[in-house]
């Protein structure tokens, strides 16, 4: 039971692991010690071994996922090779990435009871622990709900409550927010912060979006290709070049500060200032610099498309029992690159499905490439419109990547299939997977196969529902660049996303939806600047510099650097 243990709460020594059936090791010589109460962020690109390391801590590796295991993992005094997963479950709570697949009961209360029943606690104790867990996570009002009635963020909080009830010493969370919208993610992270702060539970969190958590954690461990490449205080690790080399997304405020130090003001961090991790800290450190660049004549680069209208949405109402879209109108021209933003359930996917006739408006009309969706079939529209769905797994049906990409070409009756497929595989750097089974690929590769299978028939309009969800930074950037190339050939790209930073860096137009209506529809600099939740981090920081005459339409690090550069050069002359 909960005996005393020496050294850290979590200890790994020379840990090696290779999944059975794999040639490359997932973990190479991992040695870490994590003390009680620490809040540790595990960062690194996809496939770097973060999830595997996390699963080593509660014994899922090697007991559930077999393979070659070397070295030692000791958690709360238990050697994971000898302890069972069930024994370890009392010490290590584990929250998974997918909110849906970890809830096994039909009612929240029963969900929380599940683990407690498994370890054989008496009824009255279970009742008490349920109350406690519901309260800690702030979901008392959800106790009687069925999982299907919960939002993603709520499901994740139920999952947290269900492991918290087991009174663990360590909480491990494997990308708990990657499938959530920003609000849901924040609710979950707040709970995690509270659990660490107030209950003193050791937390090990895997998260791609460093800007969300950097200021909360005590320590950052960076992994790449199965190894630990950096380990230390967040501000120290941020300065580490190796972090950037792994392709990890550096929070924009940090990125800007580091670049300013490199090119303009090497000693901006004097007077005991540290690298800023939040907008608040960023303002404090960068204010003097931005004061000096006041009154710069800077206008963002914008592409104004004047091509013909290819998508016309006119006062569309849609819904089953309750309206989901309430009078949406939108006009997209040829060559535009449009980001559709909004919370979950704001109607983004519902609207996108109208563009290919999967949804037909109850009122109003949708005309795509001259076809009225009320009259054209989905198959007819599919010749003009390519649609990439959220989950690439729903696309994958064939035995090889080649056949997968060829499938829509065949069903639409194209010739020169071989040639088209090869071309698109090359474009998406998938040539070497040509004969692989698509489902055995990694998440990012699967996403590329799904996109390839749509790009192969070169649709005039390309629609993507959250194409960057759950992807790491470098892959996100890669996919967005391909989309940008694609639209430059005179085609139109419309995608939905939660990720304001991505929308700020790419594309040229931002449409924001809320509760079934379009609330903002503008060129991205006008649409995304000067908002609270829907402005990128750099813009939120710069909003307070407006009074020094700093242009307030700056969205990205590059644009901020441009302005700084113009301002400082002007002084030189």
């Amino acid at each position, binding site marked *: 039971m909960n005996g005393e243990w020496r050294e850290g709460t979590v200890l790994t020594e020379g840990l090696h692991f290779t999944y059975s059936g794999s040639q490359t090791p997932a973990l190479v010589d991992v040695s870490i010690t994590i003390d009680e109460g620490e809040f540790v962020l595990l960062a690194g690109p996809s496939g770097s071994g973060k999830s595997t390391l996390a699963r080593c801590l*509660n014994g*899922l590796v090697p*007991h*559930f996922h077999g393979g070659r295991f070397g070295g030692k993992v000791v958690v709360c005094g238990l050697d994971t090779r000898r302890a*069972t*997963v*069930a*024994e370890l*479950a*009392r010490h290590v709570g*584990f929250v*998974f990435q*997918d909110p849906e*697949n*970890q*809830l*096994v*009961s*039909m009612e929240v*209360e029963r969900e929380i*009871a*599940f*683990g407690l*029943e*498994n*370890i*054989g*606690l*008496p*009824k009255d104790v*279970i*009742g008490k622990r*349920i109350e406690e867990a519901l309260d800690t996570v702030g979901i008392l009002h959800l106790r*009687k709900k069925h*999982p*299907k009635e919960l939002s993603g963020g709520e499901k994740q909080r139920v999952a947290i409550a269900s*492991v918290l009830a*087991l009174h663990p010493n360590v909480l491990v969370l494997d990308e708990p927010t990657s499938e959530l919208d920003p609000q849901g993610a924040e609710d979950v992270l707040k709970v995690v912060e509270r659990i660490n702060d107030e209950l003193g539970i050791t937390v090990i969190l895997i998260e791609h979006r460093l800007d969300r958590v950097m200021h909360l954690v005590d320590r950052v461990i960076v992994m790449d290709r199965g190894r630990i490449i950096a380990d230390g205080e967040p501000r120290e690790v941020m300065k580490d070049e190796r972090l950037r080399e792994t392709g990890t997304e550096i929070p924009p405020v940090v990125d800007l500060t580091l670049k300013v130090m490199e090119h303009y003001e090497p000693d901006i961090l004097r007077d005991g200032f540290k690298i800023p991790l939040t907008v608040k800290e960023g303002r404090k450190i960068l204010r003097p610099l931005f004061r000096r660049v006041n009154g710069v004549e800077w206008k963002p680069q914008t592409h104004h498309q004047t091509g013909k209208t290819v998508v016309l949405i006119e006062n569309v109402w849609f819904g089953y029992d309750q309206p989901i879209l309430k009078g949406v109108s939108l006009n997209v021209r040829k060559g535009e690159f449009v980001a559709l933003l909004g919370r979950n359930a704001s109607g983004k996917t519902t609207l996108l*499905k109208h563009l*290919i006739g*999967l949804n037909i408006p109850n009122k109003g009309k949708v005309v795509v490439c001259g076809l009225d969706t009320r009259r054209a079939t*989905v*198959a007819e529209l*599919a*010749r003009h*419109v390519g*649609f990439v*769905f959220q*989950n690439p*797994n*729903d*696309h*994958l*049906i064939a035995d090889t990547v080649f056949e997968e990409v060829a*499938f*829509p070409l065949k*069903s639409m009756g194209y010739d020169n299939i071989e040639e088209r497929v090869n071309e698109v595989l090359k474009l998406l750097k998938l040539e070497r997977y040509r004969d692989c089974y698509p*489902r055995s690929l990694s998440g990012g590769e699967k996403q590329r196969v799904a996109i390839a*299978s*749509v790009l192969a028939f070169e649709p005039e309009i390309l629609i993507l529902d959250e194409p960057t969800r759950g992807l790491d930074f470098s892959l996100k950037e890669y996919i967005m660049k391909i989309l940008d190339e694609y639209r430059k050939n005179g085609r139109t790209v419309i995608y939905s996303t939660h990720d304001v930073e991505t929308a700020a860096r790419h594309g040229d137009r931002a449409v924001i939806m809320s509760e079934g209506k379009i609330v903002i529809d503008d060129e991205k600099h006008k649409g995304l600047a000067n908002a609270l939740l829907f402005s990128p981090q750099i813009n939120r920081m710069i909003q307070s510099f407006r009074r020094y005459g700093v242009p307030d339409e700056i969205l990205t690090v590059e644009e901020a650097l441009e302005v700084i550069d113009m301002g400082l050069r002007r002084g030189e002359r």
Partner: protein
Amino acid sequence: MMVYKEADTPIHRMNPMPKIIWAITILILSLIFDNPVVLILLFVATIPPAIFGKIIKEWSFFVKLGLFFIPVIVLLNIAFNHNGEHILYTLGHNLPFFGSPVITLEALFYGIMMGIRLLVILSAFAIITLSVHPDDIVMLMLKMKVPYKSVLIVSLSSRFIPTLLSDVETITDVQRTRGLELDRGSIIKRIKNRVPVLVPLLANSLERSVEIAEAMEARAFGENKKRTFYKELKLSHADKLVSVFIFSTLLVGIIARFLGYGTYEYYPVLSPIELESIILGVLLFSMLVIPYVSVWITYNSSEPLAHGGRQ
């Protein structure tokens, strides 16, 4: 939409045990009797719980589904069954395999009654589906000492049915946007067209089951110690009494059937309805409705504050 919804009605609050015995009783009675009066009264007996449970709208969906099948059953019956003396229509030609078909009044009537039998079963099934929380069925199984792992399978399946349905919907959408036309071509072609939907569905489900297993193990599932149960189905004396009462209806029906009551001859001519079968029908009807009427009366006479909802 056609699934259980939380509501505070006398029917929802009723213990699942008597309700399920009631549905099984109706199922068996509708199968052992083919008397039109008995069948119709059995159907009528399923209406009060639907009304008291305020599930008429959802319930009528199931009934409409049944009504949709009645013409099919009738058509099949008159096409293949040529017994009976009252010929309504004769097809002059000699068809291969069919011979020279005749349509008889008796076959038509028999078809209709078989349709009503289907309606009875669907309706009783609908009441259970709509008014019993799936979790209660799970607890009932545990109460009946079904091994936990078997119960868990039932519970997990019903937990993930909505997930599976939304998966089917999304994957169908995906494949339609890839140029797949599901409802085109011959039947063989249409079935073949479904393959691109089935493959990802199966693969997704397999991957999901691995994730579920992982999540369960991570919460101490499979620990050797004896498992406890936080919620158990409580059976009050009243619940037991009601269950026994409903079960006795089944016994009455079976005994009556053995004694030869409630039978009916459709061929060669429809036999007259006998008084005995009317009495039997009314008796079974009353016995099946009394439990619901009594819970409804108790519910309405109790203080509104006492309505605590499902346990």
